[in-house]
């Protein structure tokens, strides 16, 4: 019985920590925030920021992907401003900031690892 419970626990843990699950979950959260939420919530933002970071951390090119996403979002902003979609544009820039943070932090961690290996 105990073994079974542990097995279930491991499966749940594995599933939740699985990169595909985290990526899908974080993108779903970001997508929902961008297109369906009519307000700004720091708590929501922080939660999905951390989930996304968890996902990006597991990817080999997590930092690069995040920066790319940030640059795509930054690229979109002037067009969105031109079309005067205010709420949406601020949410996009918020996520661009989040992607930049994750990207840069991931790069810093890579640098640190490189320094560790040099030691």
């Amino acid at each position, binding site marked *: 019985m105990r073994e079974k419970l542990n097995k279930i626990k491991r499966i749940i843990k594995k599933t939740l920590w699985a990169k595909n699950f985290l990526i899908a979950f974080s993108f779903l959260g970001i997508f929902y925030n961008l297109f369906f939420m009519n307000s700004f919530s720091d708590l929501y933002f922080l939660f999905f920021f951390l989930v996304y970071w968890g996902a990006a951390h597991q990817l080999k090119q997590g930092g690069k992907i995040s920066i790319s996403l940030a640059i795509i979002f930054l690229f979109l902003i002037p067009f969105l*401003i031109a079309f005067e979609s205010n709420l949406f544009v601020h949410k996009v820039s*918020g996520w661009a900031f989040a992607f930049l943070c994750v990207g840069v932090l991931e790069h810093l961690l890579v640098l640190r690892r490189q320094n560790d290996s040099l030691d």
Partner: protein
Amino acid sequence: MIFFNLRKNRKYFFNNFPLIFIILFAIVPFIWFRTGTLIGGGDNYFLLNPGALTNFFIYSWNNKIVNTGGVILAIPNLFPLLYFWTFFQSLNFSLEIIEKIWIIFLFVLPGITIYYLISQIYNRFWVKIIASILWMINLFFVVAGPFQSTIKPIFIVLPLIFSFWVKGLGSKGNEYLKYAFLIALSSLICASSSINPPALASIPLVLIVYLFFYLFIEKGNIFRSLRFALVSFFGYIIANLWWIIIFISNLFSEAKAIKATTSFSALGEGFITEYFRLLGSWGWTSGAYSMPYYPFARFYNEPFLLAATFLITILVFLAVMLKPKEKLVCFFSFLALVGLFFSKGDSYPLGSVYNWMYKNIPGFWTFREPFAKFTPVTIFAYSILLGISTESIYEKIKKWTFFVKRKINLLPVLFPLVIIFLILAVSYPIFNGEVIWDYHNGSMRSNYFKVPDYWYQAGDWLSQEDINARVLTMPKSGYGVAYNWEHGFSTADSPAIILFKNPILRLATVKTGADYLVSKVYDSVYFGLPQSSIDILSLLNTKYVVQQNDLDWRYSYSDTLSPKQMKDVLSRQKDLRFVRNFGMLDFYQLKNEAYLPRFYVPETKIISNFEKSDLGEIFNFIGEQKRIAIFLTDSLRDFSKTDSFNNPEQVIEIKTKSLVLPEQYSLMEEILNISVPYSGNRPGGLMYRLGKIKEFVDKKRSEGNMLKSIDKNLFYAAKRLREISNYGDQDDYLLRSLFTEFDESIKKLYLLKEENNGHFLKYFKKTEAMVYFIYETIEKGEVDVVSGELIENNFSNYFDLLSLLNKSPEVDSGYDFVLSQAGTYNLYLKSDDQYTDYGIRYFDSGRQNLTLTDDNGKNLVGEKNKIIDFSPNTLYKLSFEYQKSFNSRGSVLIGQSETEVIFYLNLLPTGGKEKKFETYFLSPPTNSSKDFLIKYNIPVVKNLKVEKVNFSSLVLKKIGQQTEVFSIPQIEFLKINPTKYIVKVNNADKAYGLVFSENFHQGWKLFYKDFSEDPFEKSYEKEFTYFSNEVKEYIGPMKFFDKYFFSTLFNKPIPQDTHLSVNGYANYWQIRPEDVNSKKSYYLVVEFVPQRLFHLGVLISVLGVLSAVVYLFSLRLKGKK
């Protein structure tokens, strides 16, 4: 030589071509300059002539910026800002030229220092050029303006300090000392910016982020790094001690005042979208009157500028993609994000984090405009990252096969050139001059200004007449007013501060007593400047009033008068006379007989509990006397310490105490609010015992707080009642326990009353309600108790005790005041702004409680208890004697019927005795045709009385007989500098008072001196005499060093217990013969002692800086060898 080394020179030229290119940008500010005008205004109004302030900022007591003097936080302005002007003025440069040099320096030096930084940490051609240009020319500068003198020096210093920081952290051996000293010396360049400490935050923020990066990413040596950081910090402190020492001592008092008086905050304007492209200032999209603050702001949402601004941002963050393994790129990308996070303040996303820091981190409230404080961090990172991206893309383009095959070398250069074009295009207002406001929009006038000559002429005339004379500026004006000068001039403060050498009085944010009095004078101008305001001006040591007819009064306050109205008001004053006119400036002088000099010995001292706001009213009771000293309530406590004053005449204003009216206090309402706590444990059981231990601990914990402790007693008394109700009380254990709680709470109530606690009444009501509630519950038989005697005795005692408390003046009504002297007083009552004589009465000294009834205390109770002559909105006193037993009900009401009641009160049991009851009630505000009756339902009521009570403001003036003739000593005084005065006293045979009309500060000390030679001789150029030669004022040049510089250093000051605040703002000393060796003629030195700290700070800084310079030179010489 040049020809011989042509090749070498060419190489040198090409190596440093970027620097030459950057220096060429110095021509940009020439676009802004216009012949014959200066640039400035608004918050930068001091650009009228910063050098004029130098002589005032070398003192810790500033009587230029603060009305009647005070401490300021602006001393750091001295270097480099003020001395920059002073230096060039000493070389006879015109103000116009000096300002041009300053603006060019502020514009170009940041480019040069960042060039130096990049050549040290990432020496690439295009990186140096691009970074330097963006650091010099960006949207932040467009918003801040080219003459902003606080933030711009930080742009010069940040790259320098950062490069030394990087090198210092990576240095070996003792090399770190060199970089620590260089950091300390560089910090002096931005010392002026320290007047706004949060503005400097960008420097430590960058350094700390790099330190963490160095320690945790680069794995640097922690010990060496911290040692370097510590030495750098101490180096900074020593180099800047000249201002830090005074700044810190003034910071706490000033910060409180600033926090209390300044409501401005721009925590998070807009969203991070704008901050990405270095926009986001609170004023960017707002405006005033009919125009936006930045007329060009609208173009930044047009396609080209929108695309260009975001393209720069994209290129900035592309650097981390292009050079992911470059440590500096990662560091600067991280720094950019830190800068963005802080500069956006509490905007989305994660604005709540900033908000939390703002509310919870001590001192973080100063970052109330985060955009201005943290954007330099973002730009710093942006500049370097953009340079690296551009260089990297340029290198990639160069390697394209298309260009390589065709050997096209120049075409790839187009890319960095396009980037330069984008940077310049984005900041286009810098190039078309729009960056300098040049519109006429309400009180916002052009930043180009020319000071009319009459201002200079007036300033010269004033300083020739009396350079120490205080000048009040008129009309009423404050922050953000406009002057109708040739090009206009907008200013945050009076230009007279800069253009006149004299101390100025003007409307300022109220921080000191003098500020308050000055504001009261301005408020009264609209009402014709009553004589009491002129008297206040006299107390403020004001000599001149200048009417500025060139001030655009229409854009000042709603009660600001026009020049014509001002002329009417000023020329009507009997104590003012018109003396001179200069262009649009009219000067009025206080007549000699109305003028009170900076130092004087008062003839009459007035002790008063008038509020500062009513100071002028005191003059209603003192006739024509001018030579007075007024001691207000705030100094009364200290006053009692002084010896008895000579010839004291007291004027004491007693205001009506806030009356406790029965309709405000309904016992029934209080009782209804009582909730009896739940009790589920049977007394005697284990859980009950445990509960009692918890109660004991609970009460012990609340012991320190009297109010909480009473609450606990009442709570547990109610709990005991519940227990009696639930489980009975056969042995009276619970009842006794209940009474113990009451005993304790009533004891504490008496203590509250004794200490005049402001919460006394509230807790009295709570206790009375609880006693009454429990008494009623027991009487009604709702709980089962055995000992009836115990109940009767205890409750009888409680009602007595509460009744005694109820008779205390705090609960009762009337005029409640304290008299320091017994004697006969004349009473005046105020009605319709007039004081009427109410006759004479004798009072003992100490606390008094007085009720003044109208109509000589006539009883207004008529037939059938009808109140006769019942007037609306009038205070009445109701009194009677009554007797009420415990188990009977009794109440009294006043009304037109049982339902239309204006007053109702339950009466407490009297315990078998007759008791007197007194209370007050206010009649309804409107008249009524029906009669008002008094009704009660108790059998014994005697001496029922209703009296009309007066509750106008009361003034008592002591009628005193002058017991002996008081001979006033003669005084002579000379101002050495704003922190030191020498006073000569002659013929002082008794104790006397000395008033010094500068703002009260404990730092002012009085030293007794017996100079061997006359310190006034040859030290003065002019003299004035007042009060028939009894006061003589010498006017001489200000001296930072004089021969008496150290004269008081080892002397003890006259005891400070006689140093009091007088006249609502000034200093007063009571000088006793024993303080001056019982001499009749002697000298006194009045010194602002904190100035010694400034001297010490300057000395340490100069020695520190010299040592650092010598050390660095010695290193250089060693290196050359």
